[in-house]
């Protein structure tokens, strides 16, 4: 019943050698090969907040440190989002309201000064763990979306001083070096590069410490910072030995890390945290640099600008049923093949390549790729790298009897969807059980190897299919359609060996 798991009974071999279900694979139309998310290149396409579903331009996202302005995560339970709750409080009339009030009423301002009006105030609350912004002493706000007080980082100033100091120091050091170069003073010792590399650019510090007297003191030497060492060390409070602790008031490490800057130890300092943004990504084939997926910007859109799913190009194999499997005894499996394309497909089922052949395939692929990059290597482009293709980790544990002839699956026809008629074609070879529009059911015989009870039975085959490229633009002529013969390696997990003694 669980379709998310059951998908994985049928796996296709991606060109990089990984086994994946067809729904997780892409088909690069330019290389005519299967691709998966592992062997493709991912890029951030657009940023959005997954709570308010607003698209945020990347420059703005960067400025806001990839956080959403208006949504807050609960710092206490980390999996839920805080929602703004409204309360009405009675506040004394403000001057402005007073004036409005005066217009409508005849009472004097003196008399109305004690008058109270209802005002809507907002606070943030978590509906899961009942955390509320009032818990940590944030006062209620008049506006729902903005002006929640930002937390201050206690080390911010000191950090900025140090950062400025170092940046000035390095810049200064660079200037000194350039000056030296200009003067052509060869002051370099061969040990310098060693220490240079390891860290703080020793020469700079030595100079600053006054060790290196040969360098004249340049103009804008950054002022050094007072050291921070202290004898004072935070003492353990005596209370800890006598007072019982309340676990509910001490944060867990997970809660602390929701605020990496302050890492509060008490729940009283758990402040609402701006929600981290999410991304939409586009995926690019590493071989030809074409996109296989490019989503739309709109965060709520489920459409793609470019989508090259393998499931809409490669015939899909499904297991309909399988007879009980016993070691060394042949059994029948029924497979359903679906043609997702608009052209008829001729399919031949063949043996999987042997190990040697597989190695040869990989070598050839590498060579092809290298020749490709060498030939197309422009001076500006940096060479793209591919993932090293691997040998398929899965080994079949049963022998498949190959059908003696190839067969044709009709093209997809959306209008035929409502035809439930099962067609049987006399011309079809014997192993074809039925046809229905673009689907075909075939029956094959398999013989599991010498396996034990409950061992998985895996069969594999190479599916040789014809594929016609559809003209990508309407401008192209129809006869530009090309036919290709492609291969896909398919591994089926047909079930486990049954215990025949109980039968």
């Amino acid at each position, binding site marked *: 019943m669980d379709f998310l798991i059951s998908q994985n009974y049928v796996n296709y071999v991606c060109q990089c050698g990984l086994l994946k279900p067809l729904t997780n694979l892409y088909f690069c139309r330019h290389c005519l090969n299967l691709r998966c998310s*592992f062997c493709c*290149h*991912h890029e951030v396409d657009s*940023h959005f907040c997954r709570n308010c579903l607003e698209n945020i331009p990347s420059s703005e*996202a960067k400025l806001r*440190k990839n956080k959403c302005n208006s949504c807050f995560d609960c710092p206490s339970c980390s999996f839920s989002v805080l929602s703004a709750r409204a309360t009405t409080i009675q506040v004394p009339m403000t001057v402005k309201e007073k004036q409005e009030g005066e217009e409508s009423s005849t009472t004097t301002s003196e008399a109305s000064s004690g008058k109270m009006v209802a005002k809507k105030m907002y606070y943030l609350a978590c509906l899961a763990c009942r955390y509320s912004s009032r818990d940590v002493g944030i006062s209620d706000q008049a506006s729902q979306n903005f002006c929640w007080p930002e937390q201050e*980082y206690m*080390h*911010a100033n*000191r*950090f900025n001083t*140090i*950062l400025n100091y*170092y*940046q000035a*120091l*390095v*810049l200064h050091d*660079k200037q000194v070096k350039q000056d030296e170069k200009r003067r052509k003073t060869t002051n370099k010792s061969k040990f310098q*590069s*060693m*220490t240079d*590399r*390891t*860290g*703080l*650019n*020793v020469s700079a*510090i*030595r100079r600053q*410490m006054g060790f290196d007297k040969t360098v004249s003191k340049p103009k804008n030497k950054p002022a*050094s*910072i007072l*050291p*921070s*060492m*202290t004898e004072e*060390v935070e*003492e*353990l409070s005596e209370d800890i*030995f006598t007072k*019982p*602790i309340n*676990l509910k008031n*001490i*944060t*867990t*490490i997970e809660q*602390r*890390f929701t605020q*990496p800057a*302050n*890492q509060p130890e008490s729940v009283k300092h758990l402040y609402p945290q701006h929600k*981290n*943004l*999410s991304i939409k*990504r586009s995926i690019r084939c590493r071989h030809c640099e074409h996109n296989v997926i490019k989503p739309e910007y709109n965060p709520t859109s489920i459409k793609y600008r470019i989508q090259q799913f393998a499931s809409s190009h490669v015939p899909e194999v499904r297991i309909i049923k399988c007879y009980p499997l016993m070691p060394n005894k042949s059994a029948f499996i029924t497979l359903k093949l679906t043609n997702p394309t608009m052209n008829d497909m001729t399919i031949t089922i063949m043996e999987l390549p042997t190990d040697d052949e597989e190695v040869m395939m990989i070598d050839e692929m590498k060579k092809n790729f290298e020749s490709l990059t060498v030939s197309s290597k422009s001076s500006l482009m*940096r060479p793209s*790298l591919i*993932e090293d293709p691997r040998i398929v980790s899965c080994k079949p544990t049963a022998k498949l009897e190959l059908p003696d002839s190839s067969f044709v699956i009709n093209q997809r026809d959306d209008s035929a969807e409502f035809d439930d008629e099962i067609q049987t074609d006399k011309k079809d070879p014997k192993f074809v059980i039925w046809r229905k529009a673009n689907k075909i059911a075939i029956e094959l015989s398999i013989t599991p190897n010498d396996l034990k009870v409950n061992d998985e039975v895996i069969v594999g085959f190479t599916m040789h299919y014809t594929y016609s490229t559809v003209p990508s633009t309407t401008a192209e002529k129809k006869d530009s359609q090309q036919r290709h013969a492609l291969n896909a390696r398919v591994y089926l997990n047909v079930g486990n060996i049954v215990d025949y003694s109980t039968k």
Partner: protein
Amino acid sequence: MPLFETVFQEKPAIVMEIGSAYTKIGFCGEAHPRFILPTEIESIRDVLKKTEKNLYDQAVDFFNKIFFDYLLVSPKDRKVSFVESTITTPTLIRESFAKVLFHHFEVASILFLPLHLVSLSTLAIDTALVVDIGYKEAVILPVFNGVQILKAWQAQPLGGESIHDGIKASLILNGVKDEILSERVIEDIKVRTCFVTKQARAVAHRNNESIQPCPDVDYPVDGSDVIKIPGNLREFALEVLFPEDNDYLGLPYIIIDAIIKCPVDSRKELAENILLIGGTSSMMGIKSRLRDELRTLIKSEFYMDRLYIDDVKFHNAPSKPNFTGWLGGSIYSATDLISNSITRENYLKHPKIPDWIFYDGSSTRNQG
């Protein structure tokens, strides 16, 4: 912050510190990491552990998460800085990381920064005794005038892991079921209930004198059980860092050992510039305890005439101890020194990462 970004580079470098328990990630020039998340590469926590996926695949998955779920940047053509414990990071791991980042993610350059050294830049000093107490081990390395004194390096498996083992063993002795004590639960017990006690009480405890124990805590585990955490465990669980035996390998001893291996004229300065970093050093009371222990040691008969130091002083970095190293990397990478990284072009020519033994200047140096 935008000022620096425009002045120095358009895309700020990514700074990571992949610890054995937690990974700190963020951008250079920022005052704190954006995220601290559990390290999800099993081989780092436990090098010998047999895992289904190899290190390369695990690292791809983990970096995928870092780039696309947390930092939200395309790694292509980005600069990456790694803060790492140079001496203790296995070559296999750093080379795998380099391969993953250059091959799979096509980053522009990688800069490996020695943890102990860059930690100093958070204080703008160039001499300190850096004590890193992490999850797997405590590593001590003196840095003098910006040079790491490698021969004085000290490391002992004193850290989060040994504390966790201690807590677990002691709770099981008290009759708590093994299966409810997951790593997460043990860590939570440590973080929320345990602390480092005072020296006097620790001595009394060691000598089996009776002291008034601190209060017990009833700790609910996953809603299915309530276990009692005895006061003794809360107070003395972290004593594993301060063992008193004939090996003399407790934290204070190895700190003194590190100092003693340094030249005499540098010792005083080092002892007065101690910097505590690493996750375990955020435990309550550890700093004051270390100070007391060290003071006792330098006045002890054995060290009196060898050490020639009179006091110890500690630094307070502008950070939480668990990301001090990261912060150093952030400061360092925000300067122009990041141009000293290994670039992708160079890596593709010589796929080798220089380290302490093998150093080939050609792969790190750009011309100039």
